[in-house]
């Protein structure tokens, strides 16, 4: 029945189904990029990195192991929590407290014969460029925007136009409830995570005065306990959001405040949700998004079918709340992207602002989201968060207005943040008086 020959590598019987597709061209295969005779072996020799061994990460490891990849690394600093067990299917009750990366790697190695999985139980920021340079593809299943931005900036910075191996395709997945997204990034060639940052705007913070004097919602009472009461009473030396005793303390405080203001709705689960910023997560959605990511990794590695990323669509949005929708489209690269673009991004500011107001604004602007910015103008340093001596020296600038600091319309500033050690974000000041 076969319409063309297959070209297996090791274990031909085991990979029967995979070889039919990966070693034979289909109607959509690009013949210039595809050589079926070598593809199976090439994939076996590739090194692929999985970032995150959580809900998406467990799925990613399973999917890659069953997509013909034999040399997989996984990196995650987290330990297993009981609330992971409803979806992180490589973990059992007895694994609670152990390293996610190590348990996940061991499980998949044992289940799928011949696959080698190397676990790294650490932060992604602890690894250097040499580490990331050894992989051909990076797949990300993270729940933090910061970590995504860090690996994105790192991979973009690693690109050396003269070295083909320095381009590492980045595939990134994310989920929330019944929704999620999968995207493919070819660093410096297509739109990067920083280009797409405004699609994931941070939630607006509740004004401090609302928390302090006019709470109206149960969340306001919980934030009050978290931000104000905790600092005032310091019941434990340091807040550990995973310690039930600490959460219970916050819950009781929030409950008292809610009683005082007759606000209904404070519960333990809500307290935990607000304080830890919990995002609902289920196995089914992780299954969809991780598989979408690995399907792209498989196509990129084999060229047996066109992948997302280039030249057309690079982003798939998925929503299962109401019916099922996917929206697969092309997100354009931005010339003023602070990470992959050449132009400084325009930043509308009021010249009457103090430098402090400018510094604070970086955290909440959807296009910046920098929590600890240090700022340099073309000719001088305006404010440095560290080292301490420089911070002290530049601190007086915080109370000066932008005009007083000699800044001009259209002037470029450089912003760095400890979360993105290697990157300097370029912005161009656009003066606009607020009304």
């Amino acid at each position, binding site marked *: 029945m076969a319409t063309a020959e297959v070209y297996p590598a090791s274990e031909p019987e085991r990979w029967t189904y995979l070889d039919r597709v990966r070693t034979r061209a289909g109607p959509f295969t690009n013949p210039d990029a595809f050589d079926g005779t070598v593809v199976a072996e090439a994939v076996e020799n590739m090194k692929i990195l999985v970032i995150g061994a959580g809900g998406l990460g467990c799925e990613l490891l399973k999917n890659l192991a069953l*997509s013909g990849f034999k040399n997989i690394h996984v990196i995650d600093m987290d330990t297993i929590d009981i609330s992971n067990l409803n979806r992180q299917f490589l973990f059992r*009750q007895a694994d609670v407290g152990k390293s996610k990366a190590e348990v996940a790697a061991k499980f998949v190695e044992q*289940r799928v014969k011949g696959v080698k999985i190397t676990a790294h139980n650490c932060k992604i920021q602890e690894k250097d460029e040499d580490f990331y340079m050894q992989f051909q593809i990076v797949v990300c299943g993270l729940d933090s925007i910061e970590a995504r931005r860090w690996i994105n900036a790192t991979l973009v910075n690693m690109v050396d136009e003269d070295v083909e191996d320095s381009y590492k395709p980045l595939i990134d997945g994310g989920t929330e409830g019944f929704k999620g997204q999968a995207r493919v990034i070819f660093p410096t060639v297509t739109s990067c995570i920083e280009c797409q940052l405004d699609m994931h705007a941070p939630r607006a913070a509740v004004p401090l005065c609302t928390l302090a004097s006019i709470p109206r919602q149960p969340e306001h009472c919980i934030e009050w306990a978290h931000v104000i009461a905790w600092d005032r009473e310091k019941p434990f030396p340091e807040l550990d959001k995973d310690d039930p005793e600490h959460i219970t303390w916050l819950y009781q405080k929030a409950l008292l405040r809610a009683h005082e203001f007759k606000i209904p709705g404070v519960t333990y689960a809500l307290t935990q949700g607000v304080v830890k910023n919990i995002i*609902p997560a289920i196995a089914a959605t992780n299954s969809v998004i991780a598989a979408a990511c690995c399907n792209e990794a498989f196509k990129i590695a084999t060229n047996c079918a*066109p992948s997302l990323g280039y030249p057309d669509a690079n982003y798939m949005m998925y929503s*299962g709340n109401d019916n099922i929708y996917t929206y697969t489209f092309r997100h354009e690269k931005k010339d003023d992207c602070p990470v992959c673009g050449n132009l400084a991004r325009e930043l509308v500011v009021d010249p009457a602002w103090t430098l402090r107001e400018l510094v604070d604004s970086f955290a909440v602007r959807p296009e910046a989201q920098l929590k600890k910015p240090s700022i340099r103008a073309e000719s001088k340093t305006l404010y440095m968060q560290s080292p301490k001596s420089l911070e002290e020296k530049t601190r007086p600038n915080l109370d000066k207005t932008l005009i007083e600091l000699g800044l001009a319309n259209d002037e470029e500033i450089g912003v760095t943040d400890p979360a993105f050690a290697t990157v300097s974000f370029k912005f161009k000041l656009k003066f606009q008086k607020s009304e």
Partner: protein
Amino acid sequence: MAEIVMSQTPPILHGPSEKEKKYDRQLRLWAASGQAALESANLLLVNSGTGGVGIETLKNLVLPGIGRFAIYDEAIVSEADLGLNFFLDEDSLGKARSQSLTAHLLELNPEVQGASYPDEEGVTDLQSLLATSPMFTAIMYAHPILPEQLSLLQTYGQLHKTPLVAIHSAGFYSYFKINLPGDFPIVDTHPDETATTDLRLLSPWPELVEFAKGMTKDIDTLDAYEHGHLPYVTILLHYLEQWKESHGGAYPLTYKEKIQFRKMIQAAARTDNAEGGEENFEEAAAAVLKTVVPPSLPSGLREVFEYEPKETIEERSSFWIIADAIKAFHAKHKALPLRGNVPDMKAQSKVYIQLQNIYKTKARQDAAEVLVTAQALEPGRHFDLAEVELFCKNAPFVKLINATGGGGNASPGSVDRLREVTAQEFTNDESAEVTLAPLSLVPIYLALQATSHVVSASADDILAGIAKVVPGASDNERVVSAACEVARAEGGELHNIAALTGGMVAQELIKIITKQYVPIDNTCIFDGIESRCQVLRL
């Protein structure tokens, strides 16, 4: 001081149970009621073909704690199974596939029960399984399936009103099709919170009018703090009255009038302060377009109102009786029962809580009226107030899936329906370049469907099969490509496509079992080459 504080603490403060901890991330989506529904569900998977997609689906249902599952699978584990299915290993080789799969799936969640068939205790075929097993909540089957097995399942589904889910995954393609036993209404659809604001500013009831008047009667002489803390609802109500006075008693209803009204609000904000404006007036201005609206009847609810269920009144579920009661409420009041939620807005705590209570009280009164009407419609039946309240709260968002009849279309599942939809999709595709709409995925469905009962087929065989079902379709260039792509896989699954499809099917089964969120109606086709899907009613 500490003692006083503690004595005010409410006495019961137990933290979450172990089970609540384990299921925390999903309870935030479907709550204890949804979890209870999952835990009492009993699913059957009839596994055939290469056997990947059904197991990936089950994995995603065992993890969140489905009550019980059964796998019927006649295959013996081969080497090729190990390259596709994660829930098999070296030790499984040569053993019954259903047994190894069941054992490995059960490791995922000790609270779930599972069984595998055929077994050694007399259940040797599908027929005897269906005859002896406890009632199934839903049945999934993977293509290619033997025609005689399929007809057994269809008979069972009709007899017991069991939802059937057909799944087919091959190479980069898949589809699944949900066959619900009848109309399927959903109340708890979880609309986006931002879409639910209903403030009734154009038809305020006496308590709300009185409250707003009390707050705003001296609006021009209020001190800065009070003026800056008027909740925007009262600001809008106050200036709507002013507007009416200068517009012959009419409300601002057109877009142009609303823009003018918004300017009126913006102009009323005080600017003689440090901020140069007032946040509550900004909120009021921003809310004009969305909240200054007359009551309307959303299309989903209109469909429910106009629908005639096949059953007699006595046989109907309480959903239909409550829907009739709400219809009567709407006819009488020219508005739906009030949802009763008030979005957060700048206001003093006490004032906001008062306002919230005015809305909540009205919502409770409306629900109580609906309950009385429902009881009058069906005097012998008991109606649960909580159910009526949930329906009233969600009335604008209720959805009816799989409504039968109406529309003049051929009925779903029929060949006529498939021909009709295919013709329509091909017509749409002709103008796709102009409309920028994505091209139809119906070619994928046609190509997979042509291999519903055979392990594999050549592209020519597939095209011949398509031509028999939908004459002319096999000439379509995209259908030819889809047939080649399906032939390439020779009935083999790719794990990624199986996992992705299994995730979607699991989401749908969760929605159907919990009766929360909105399931598809009725077929979802996935293209793993372009990474997108399309839902069609076939």
